[in-house]
């Protein structure tokens, strides 16, 4: 089995690439992610909030569009309703979506529920991912055990004969 190995880099380059360099890198990444994920984005404007909610609601009169995407009168009407509820300042996003669902029909949500049969659409991707990882693990293990097989005397004899034949040709 051939294993590619690293070349001998220049001294400074080599020093930088040792584990401390990687530890510093990891530290910077962790700090950056911590700052980025905890930093406040500032208050959402009503319009940003409206867009976020509208993306979760299907346009009742359109084909495959959300209320956010559609320019149909029905979608505009729902956007006006949502905007009105947002401006009152007392409703959460979920409450507004529930209001729209109650008033415009049960088909209006674009996000399947995580309960009942609808949960299948959430569970199956996870199941597929787990199967994929398990499959890869099993395959690599099998290949590794196959690769680790010790050649028999007969195998060695075949290789020796082939090498001898090659030497004769040269």
């Amino acid at each position, binding site marked *: 089995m051939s294993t590619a190995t690293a070349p001998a880099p220049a001294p400074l380059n080599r020093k930088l690439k040792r584990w401390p360099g*990687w530890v510093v890198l990891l530290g910077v990444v962790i700090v950056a992610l911590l700052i980025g994920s905890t930093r406040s984005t500032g208050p959402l404007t009503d319009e940003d909030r409206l867009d976020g909610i509208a993306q979760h609601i299907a346009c009742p009169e359109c084909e495959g569009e*959300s209320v956010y995407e559609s320019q149909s009168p029905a979608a505009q009407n729902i956007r006006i309703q949502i905007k009105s509820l947002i401006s009152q300042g007392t409703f959460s996003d979920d409450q507004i979506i529930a209001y729209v669902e109650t008033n415009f029909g049960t088909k209006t949500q674009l996000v399947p529920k995580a309960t009942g049969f609808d949960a299948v659409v959430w569970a199956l991707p996870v199941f597929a991912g787990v199967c994929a990882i398990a499959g890869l693990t099993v395959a690599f293990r099998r290949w590794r055990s196959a690769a680790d097989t010790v050649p028999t005397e007969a195998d060695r004899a075949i290789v020796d004969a082939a090498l001898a034949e090659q030497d004769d040709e040269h």
Partner: protein
Amino acid sequence: MLGATVNGTLGHSVLLVGLICATFGALATVYGIRTGDSRLLRTTQRYAFGVALAGVAAFGVMERALVDRDFTLAYVQQVGSADTPFLFNITAIWSALEGSILLWLLILVGYTAVIARRFRKRLADPLVAWALVVMFVVCIFFFVLTLGPADAFRAGAIGVTKGTGPNPLLQNHILVLFHPPILYLGYVGMTVPFAFAIAALITGRVGERWLTETRRFALFAWGFLTIGILLGGWWSYEVLGWSGVWGWDPVENASLLPWLTGTAYIHSVLVQERRGMLRVWNLTLLVSTFALTILGTFLTRSGVIKSVHAFSNGTIGPYLLSFFGIVAVVSLGLIAWRGDRLRSPGAIDSPMSREGAFLANNVLFTVFAFVVLLGTVFPLIVEALQNRTIKVGSPYFESMVVPFGLVLLFLMAVAPVLPWRKASTELLRDRLFWPAWVGVIAMVVPLVFGATGFAALLAFGLGGFAAGAASRQLILATRRQGLRGLVGRANGGMVVHIGVIIVAVALVASTTYTHSSVIELTVGKQASYGGHTFELVAVEGFTTARSNGVRAKVRVDNAKDYSPAITTYTAFGSNVPTPSVRNGVLDDIYLTIEPGAAPGDKTATIKVFIKPLVVWLWIGGLLMVVGTGLSGFPGKRRRRPTDPTSAPIPIGPDPDPVSEEPVSV
């Protein structure tokens, strides 16, 4: 079946001729193979050219009917109009089901003729002959569609002298001219590697030779599909007025599915060419890619799933579903039949190897394709099993795409530096160090400028990491070979990777950091939003032969005027918003006008979207196209196609530029 009109009769006639040519072509080729009659096999080219001529003629006749406004045809009554401009009359042919199938047929017969021409000296070779049989059979299916459920030449109602023209969304942007044909060049192009895969299974020549025969076809089909998808996103951005490029609509998903499996294939095929492994996997991917083009067409053209892009419904569903079933059963049956020859002797020694990374990439793409398919068809499953309706929209897909995207970016960073067989930890530490720091910079710079969000920052970091790895390989290759170092599969592929990374980063930025506001503008008064100023210059009306509408002239940043509009197409009575966009390197300003404005008004309500980095989507896409072109040409150290690439790898220098001579950067 025959229409009573000149164009109808002509159209049906050439389609019948095409059907006959394809049928005789398939039968003659099979007979020639069975009897070993090489003289007969050499005539295959004539049948292929006959099929091509018939397809081109049928398409030409329909175009002529549209341009001449031949309202005796039902299809022209449906999509033709005396008021539609010439350009959109031309593009009207693919604005509904029947014409789209004609376009599909045109491209399919074109590929068939190209294959017959390309392999004209090897028509007696059973591999080529069987591949042509498969192409002929697919042609037969599409000729049957054009004469049956998707008959574009059917006579229309008597006495009709005008039509509505194509859907309003399909007659207000020039991208309508390019997006569908280019997408179909990719979609239909997947038929070629599929045909050779089936031919390899039938002949039992399941080694690597057929892969090298079809490598460029697969690559260019993938390239066209990529361009087509990106142009579709651009069209959506410029036309639909919601400022997005991808809505996870069923039609969009139908084009994405074969792209995902096709992307997996063009990676895993390298493992087979190099190591002789993954034969069953590659065949399955090719079959899946082709089958998904048929399934996607069924889902979006049969009317089972509603979509803003569907533009048609018809009775074509059972035909497409049956064909999909036949393709799946026959292909899987052949793979099972040839199972003994498909076993590969090699082993992937380590997950920390080029082939290990390709396999992981493949599994990821396949699972992602499964998720997209599941989300697309889940409403159908619920309706069939529980007799109720639900919808699965973009929030579902967007929540799913994040983990896949992040892992793929990570693999794109690591895979290019991995050697074949096995990598040591020292080697990875050496080769990944500087690319990883590029990733850190790509994460920290946006953070300094105020970027937030764990997933977005991680995506920027991984994007930088992957770009660093790809650039590293290109730097090494160009140092050694000059500009020729950009050519060839490995290095052209790195150019594609950089394009993909740019697209990914632009998508993340434009979806995460888009802000919008509705602004009441008054003539002569400035308003500010998102660091820009907006001033209403005037609200104007406009009238054309087919539409009228209102547009607001808005001056942005005291410079150029932009004119978002609402157009009412008189034949349809529907309002179509037309956004106006100021493109910029850092952000786009996307303007739409809210309903209610009238010509002469002194005020107008404008919706403003500030969308970062959108223009980089198109730049990244262009780079992907360039990279695909570079990948299609052989590098300096080209293997001869006849070399047994599955043979044990010889001891000596690795021809891969990175593996061959690792240089510390």
